[in-house]
């Protein structure tokens, strides 16, 4: 397969960026999207052109490092997969593919397709935890938890923190990310104790980082590679109200 790639190039955080077009040829359909970029990069290096910078690590869809806004969608055209799990058979031979970084004010571009998502870390630091110190835990079976509750918590806990929800949202809202953590911890008996402080602290940090508000377009759920549901946002709103009035 052959492709034309329109790629965002930006030397550093301060530089102005622009699109550049590259050709890649003879790509097999079982090549992954990132392997296709690897092939292009090897080519560029040999031609003395700087390779394209992009974030990636596990290449199995679990670490949340890869990003990329492909043809107008975070993680590209397929639902429920990350960029690293996208294969070229999902594209048409001869297609022009546009590749941009995740764009959002709280995620500044560092270079080319690499952005700074440390705002997510700071939101977790503000309250995305259960305050238990090592050594003070009771036996794991001392509090039975209904299977359905754990499954629901796990559905939310699966979030990989990639930031696709923010990139998909016209307001750059981080509500899906924050609500997934609030739900995961708040649903479990261990996490219920602190749930009101947690939601207040995390939301305050989210606002401080400059994420926008949620206007219920649900683009986040549609683009989430892990299928995190917007029902979590409803739960966050309930908890937030409860916390504000308590």
């Amino acid at each position, binding site marked *: 397969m052959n492709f034309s790639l329109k790629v965002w190039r930006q030397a550093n955080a301060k530089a102005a960026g622009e699109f550049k077009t590259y050709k890649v040829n003879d790509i097999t359909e079982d090549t992954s999207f990132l392997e296709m970029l690897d092939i292009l990069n090897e080519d560029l290096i040999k031609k003395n*052109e700087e390779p394209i910078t992009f974030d990636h*690590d596990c290449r199995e869809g679990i670490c*949340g490092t890869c990003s990329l806004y492909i043809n107008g969608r975070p993680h590209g055209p397929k639902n429920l997969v990350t960029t690293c799990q996208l294969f070229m058979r999902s594209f048409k031979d001869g297609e022009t593919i546009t590749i941009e970084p995740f764009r959002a004010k709280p995620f500044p571009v560092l270079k080319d397709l690499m952005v700074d998502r440390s705002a997510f*870390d700071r939101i977790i630091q503000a309250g995305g935890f259960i305050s238990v110190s090592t050594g003070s835990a009771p036996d794991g079976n001392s509090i039975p938890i209904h299977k359905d509750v754990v499954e629901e918590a796990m559905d939310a806990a699966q979030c990989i923190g990639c930031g696709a929800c923010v990139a998909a949202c016209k307001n750059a809202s981080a509500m899906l990310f924050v609500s997934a953590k609030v739900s995961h911890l708040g649903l479990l008996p261990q996490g219920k104790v602190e749930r009101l402080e947690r939601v207040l602290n995390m939301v305050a940090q989210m606002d401080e980082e400059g994420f926008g508000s949620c206007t219920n377009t649900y683009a986040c759920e549609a683009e989430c590679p892990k299928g995190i549901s917007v029902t979590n946002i409803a739960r966050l709103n309930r908890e937030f109200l409860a916390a504000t009035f308590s």
Partner: protein
Amino acid sequence: MVLDAKIPSGPIESKWTNHKFGLKLVAPSNRRKYSVIIVGTGLAGASAAASLGELGYNVKVFCFQDSARRAHSVAAQGGINAAKNYRNDGDSIFRLFYDTVKGGDFRAREANVYRLAELSVNIIDQCVAQGVPFAREYGGYLDNRSFGGAQVSRTFYARGQTGQQLLLGAYSALARQIGSKQVEYYPRTEMLDLVMVNGKARGIVARNLVTGKIESHSADAVVLATGGYGNVFYLSTNAKGSNTTAIWRAHKKGALFGNPCFVQIHPTCIPVKGEYQSKLTLMSESLRNDGRVWVPKAKGDKRHPGQIPENERDYYLERVYPSFGNLVPRDVASRAAKKVCDEGRGVGSSGQAVYLDFADSIKRLGKDKIKERYGNLFDMYHEITDENPYEVPMRIFPAVHYTMGGLWVDYNLMSNLPGLFVLGEANFSDHGANRLGASALMQGLADGYFVIPSTIGGYLAGESFEKLDTSHEAFKTAENEVKERISKLLAINGKETVDYYHRMLGKIMWDNVGMGRNEPGLKEAISKIRALRDEFWQNVKVLGEGEEVNQSLEKAGRVADFLELAELMAQDALHRRESCGGHFREESQTPENEALRDDENFAYVAAWEYQGEGKEEVLHKEPLTFEYVKLTQRSYK
């Protein structure tokens, strides 16, 4: 040099308790006077940083990813062992200890392994308290599954994302400490050297991966929790960034490297598909609970699996190992797969694969049950191969997965360099020559949550520390060395990319230092690695500058280190003229082609000491004695 493992005396059940009691303590109000550097935020590093922060030490924590939560531990799928015996199926601390020593083919220290088994039960409690959503049964109690090398169900899991959930637990505990300013956090920062002052580890030199600036950090102790070095093979199940740099540079500063040739090749991975492939994907071992491994009985049988009748299939693991069947340990399963493929009975277009078939389990349990257990793994397989494993058996093949070798540490997890501690996959300690499934997560968390908080206090309280900061000349020297190396890499401007050299190295390692090793092959590997390393330093092309984001430069530094480590691995494999666990010397096998140990000559840890560029390393031996688990030839028949 005498290697003192500092194993406490007394009966094995009370060694750890007595040892902890004997360790000096740092009083709570004094802890803030001590500073500790922790490199790595995987299960080992994040749990250590969180726990030491909670205790009140001043901690600085580093990782090369953009967030601590993305460390490679996140990718672990199957589960974590603990001797809870919630199933009442005869499990106990002693049995987990026994299984691990035997599974490791008698090349691990009994005392360390016993402690690991003992701490395993506390780990589960800790994780549950942090909100890790482990799978539960209908009554609300914790569920278990079985893993290879064990006949009890002791593996706790969170769907197919156990590593992710455990890491998020440790990460959140760490985040709490960062939020309260007890821990200083340095993501996107790569350690490039260890700094020794007056014989003690006192700091690191690191590169800020965003600005490219070289920075020094000083402390009273340094903890490396930097993961494994499986990527020396280029293709492995490790994340792309996993590397050996931190431990290799520490090795070059004097830390001994233990059993570098002990590599685990995991039996169930998606087979290699082509030249451009960048990594291999693991299909969790837990699949062997419900999947049956087979190949056609006849050579070169190219029929579709559905057309091969039952009596023309060879369920070779069940046939050869009736008591463990599909759940034999990894080294055994991998070698068996290689054997049937070498016989010409492999499947798929390359003939380098075997089937992992779920048809019987789907019939017995229903598709929904299988989906609940392995849904995300099946989806991942489908995504990568474009084949539906609910309908067609998976094709799998062994791939490099884990490194049992690592920096040598004593019972306190301190290397031979005072003040340098090593945790998790980066050390050599608990798995001997083969690691059992679901035991790496257990070890990482045992090291970080429970061992280091006690042992580091013992070290700090027992030493006096001169005040120093990064203006000390040792830091300046190390910084200059790091900078020179970077300039050198950028100046070569040769013809080939870094990835090209990495792939070439991987091929040498897979062919000659992989699943089957022999003397001529290993000697050939050593000379080929040397030649490749020379060529790398003359002909690699790294574009861009040092003081900016430069991913090629990052890779180049890591590959340069792999090119050195690879030679030591081959050297170690060559000297160990026995087979044990994952190390299979073709010269040493039983009549049934199983690994044949030579306890008389090789029941020791091989700890290698660096001697300088181009010089052969010196071997030190730590003898291993077995008081509680009788040395026997392993059998899973």
